[in-house]
Every structure is written in structure tokens, then in C-alpha cells.
């Protein structure tokens, strides 16, 4: 009994809607568990990025005498984008294998676990934005009308991260080394995303490579354009972000559909 493509899509959608409450519950479980039994609780979502920013600002502007103006905003605007991409993808990476027991013993759609990881990462990102708003207020950097494009940048970033995380999550099911490779990879990625130094301190070739081929940097640069330099993101960057977003999202969905059949034997 082969289903047509349309029927398959309908089935997936009705199934997905049926499991929406479970998805919401998994997301809130993630957040709840993270801060359970801590004194400050959810305040950590805002405090943590603030403190990291303060330390990095002290280290890089006092110790290394950076010439970047408004360094806290430079740092934060970039870092929040980078941490979302790598954090969310890393969270999605382990989401399927960590819920292996649930998959083997109950019948829930497998894609609900990466989606839940993504959801809780997005909520965390929103908390980061609150922290970022505080930084903007303290430094007197009030956002201009260019902010209207920020949701578009975020959407591109979400699509890209969804795709990357899905690919990694599926890979992890078959090859458990993926997690360790990713850890090493993100270390390199951190330094290649131009988070705490100015782009111009690199050679021209390096600058070109990063601006062309590092998707995380697309979002870092556009975020700085909007919040720090009060200008429109470059159209080329916006286009690149959209293209990697769509391409990775499609690749991620393709990986799920490929793995669906025999994934259960490996989790």
C-alpha cells in the first residue's frame, strides 16, 4: 500500500498537530530541568550571557587593548548569534540518541526530539535578547529602525540551525563519534567567527574566506550591522543567509526521511 506524496504530507501534518502538546511539554521540561533546584532559577538565562560578556569585555579590552568602539555591544551582538547556532545544533545532535529508550518503548514520532531541542534553544535565545537589551541600555546604544530586519536574520539563522542540527542528530545515530568531532569543530568555529577581534585584523584572503564560507559569520555580521552600526545588512549577506538556511533545512529534512526506516535499530 504505497501512499502518494500528498497523502504522506497530510499524514505528517495531522500527526504533527496531534503531538503539538507533547512538543510543548518537552520544551518546558527542558527549561524546567535546567534550572530546577538552583536559587536564581530562570534568572540565569539572562545572567549567564551578561557575565560572560563582562568577563570577555574586561579580558579583551583591558588586557589586549582592542581598538573596537563600543566593545560590549560588538561582542554581544555577535556572540549571541554564534552561541545560538552552535548551542542549538549541539543540543539537537544528542537529542535523538538520548531519547533512544523512549523511541524503543513507546510510539512517538522520532522528529519530536530534535524539534523540542530546537524549541528550548529558541526560548533561551529570547532570554539572551533580554540580556542584550540590558547591554544596549547601559551602553546607550539605542536601536534604529534597521531593527525591522532582525527577525528576518533570525529566521534565516533558525532555518540554517535546524538543518545543521538535524543532519548532526541523524549522523549521531549511526556514528557516535559525531559528537566528539563536533566538539573539536566548534572550537575552530569559535575562532573563525570573528567574535572578539575585528575582521580587519585578518589577512584579506582569510577575510574573504570567512565572509563567503562561514554561515555563522553571516549572522554575526548582520546582527552587528543592525545593532552596532545602525545600517542595513548588506544584501549579499542577507541573500547568502537565506540560501544556506533553505539549503540546510532541506538537507536536514532529507536526512530524516532517509533515516526514518531503520533508525530505530541503531538508537
Amino acid at each position, binding site marked *: 500500500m504505497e501512499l502518494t506524496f500528498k497523502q504522506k504530507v497530510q499524514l505528517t501534518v495531522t500527526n504533527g498537530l496531534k503531538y503539538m*502538546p507533547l512538543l510543548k511539554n518537552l520544551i518546558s521540561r527542558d527549561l524546567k530541568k535546567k534550572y530546577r533546584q538552583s536559587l536564581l532559577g530562570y534568572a540565569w538565562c539572562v545572567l549567564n550571557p551578561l557575565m560572560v560578556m563582562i568577563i570577555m569585555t574586561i579580558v579583551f579590552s583591558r588586557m589586549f587593548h582592542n581598538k573596537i568602539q563600543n566593545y560590549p555591544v560588538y561582542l554581544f551582538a555577535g556572540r549571541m548569534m554564534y552561541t545560538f547556532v552552535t548551542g542549538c545544533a549541539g543540543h539537537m545532535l544528542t537529542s535523538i540518541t538520548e531519547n533512544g*529508550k*523512549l523511541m524503543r*518503548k*513507546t*510510539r512517538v514520532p522520532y522528529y519530536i526530539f530534535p524539534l523540542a531541542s530546537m524549541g528550548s534553544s529558541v526560548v533561551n535565545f529570547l532570554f539572551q535578547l533580554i540580556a542584550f537589551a540590558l547591554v544596549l541600555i547601559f551602553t546607550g546604544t539605542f536601536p534604529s529602525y534597521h531593527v525591522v530586519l532582525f527577525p528576518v536574520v533570525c529566521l534565516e539563522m533558525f532555518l540554517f540551525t535546524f538543518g545543521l542540527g538535524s543532519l548532526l542528530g541523524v549522523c549521531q545515530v549511526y556514528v557516535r563519534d559525531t559528537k566528539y568531532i563536533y566538539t573539536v569543530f566548534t572550537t575552530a568555529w569559535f575562532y573563525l567567527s570573528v567574535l572578539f577581534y575585528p575582521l580587519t585584523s585578518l589577512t584579506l584572503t582569510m577575510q574573504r574566506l570567512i565572509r563567503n564560507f562561514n554561515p555563522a559569520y553571516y549572522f554575526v555580521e548582520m546582527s552587528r550591522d543592525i545593532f552596532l552600526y545602525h545600517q542595513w545588512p548588506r544584501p549579499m549577506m542577507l541573500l547568502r543567509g537565506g540560501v544556506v538556511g533553505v539549503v540546510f533545512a532541506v538537507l536536514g529534512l532529507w536526512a530524516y526521511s532517509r533515516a526514518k526506516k531503520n533508525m530505530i*535499530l541503531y538508537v
Partner: protein
Amino acid sequence: MSDTIISIKDASIRFNLAMQKDWNLKDYVEKLFHKEKRFQEFFALKHIDLQIKRGESWGFVGRNGSGKSTLLKMITGILRPYTGEVAVNGTVAPLLELGAGFDNDLTGRENIMMNGLILGMTKKQVMDYFDDIVEFSELEQFLDVPVKKYSSGMRARLGFAVATAARADILIADEVLGTGDRKFQQKCEARMANLLSGGTTLLFVSHSAPSVRRVCQKAMWLDHGEIQMVGPTEDVLTAYENT
């Protein structure tokens, strides 16, 4: 509408043993050179045919590793048949392991919601059944304690209470009465009888022959993935016990 709720035709389940064991680079390189190592197949179920009608209660017996749980997983939809067909016409409440959907760090109260949602209930349904679940599991005092601090009996009670709260068309119970005490077992059996009279179909695995005799009308005896015997519970169990 036909009253056949589960129809299995010539279904087999195949596992690749080479794939199941721990994987490492050394094995991988070896496998590249020795083709036979790449595939070590094992049939957990072989050519199973089974028709189950709405409202029946079936017991599955057989030694460890005979394929009982694999069969139930296939009916639940967790495993796909390698060959053959499986058609299920109704909602399934699987209890393949008591408390399988529990999150140890969450409280009993939170886990009731989570487990209910995993079973495919809506939030409202879980709320409606909440009091009933608490009453049946006798855990009123411990609702706000993380489940990791529950005893295995408490977990069993809660798991059973949630899975049986809503009237699913098919209830699958795999060796679930083992951890409870006698009183709880009786309570569970009473509830299963109650569900049966309400039209639920029951698939029941247990190593306790008396339980199977009390609960099930029909039984299947599996051995090494093959059907040894199918028939009325008494006949099958007598034959099984005489081996």
C-alpha cells in the same frame, strides 16, 4: 466495518547482528575485507500470521527470546516488518515496559502529564483522568516527589494507571505485573477485565501462567520466532507447560 482489529500476514522481523554490537573502526576495516562479517542476519520473527478480533484478549507465552516482545513492538508500530504486512485498526496504548516514558527528574504529577501526552492523549484528557490515575496508583502523597525516588512498585503502579486510564482500542501489556505486590496484581487484572468488557482488545505477555489463564481467552505460544501453537488459552498453556 470488519471486526478484525489486528491483521498480521506472513510477517518477519530481521535484525542484523553485526550491526547490533558495538561498532568501532577496527571492526569496520575488518568488515571491508570480509564480506560475510558485514551481515549476520537473525530472524526474531518468522512468517507470523495472526488475526485478532475486536474485544478479544490474547496471551503470548514462550521462553525468553522467543519473540514475544518483538511481536508486540511490531504491532505497536515501533518495528517495521521486514516482509509481510501488519494492519492495525485502532489506537494502541503500549505498556512495553512500565514507566518507559518517565523522566526521572520530573515529579509524579509532571510525569502523568508527560506520559499521557506520549500515549497520544490531549492535555484535557489527561486532566480529566488525573484523579482516577492518582486514585488507582495510590500515590497521592508522593505526587510532587521526583520519580527517581519512587520504588519500582510505585513506578509500576503509576505507569499502569496512566496507560489504562484512557480507553484505547488496544492495550498491550508486556510483563507488567511482575513488580507489583499481590494486591496490585489483582487490581490490575480487575482493571484489564473491566477494559475488556468495555470492548478493548488486550494483548498480554506474562510468565505467570495463572495470570494468563485468568485474563486471556486465547493464547499464542512462540518459540524461536515461530508460532508453535495458537488456540484457546487452556489448550495452549497445557501444551506449553508439558514441554
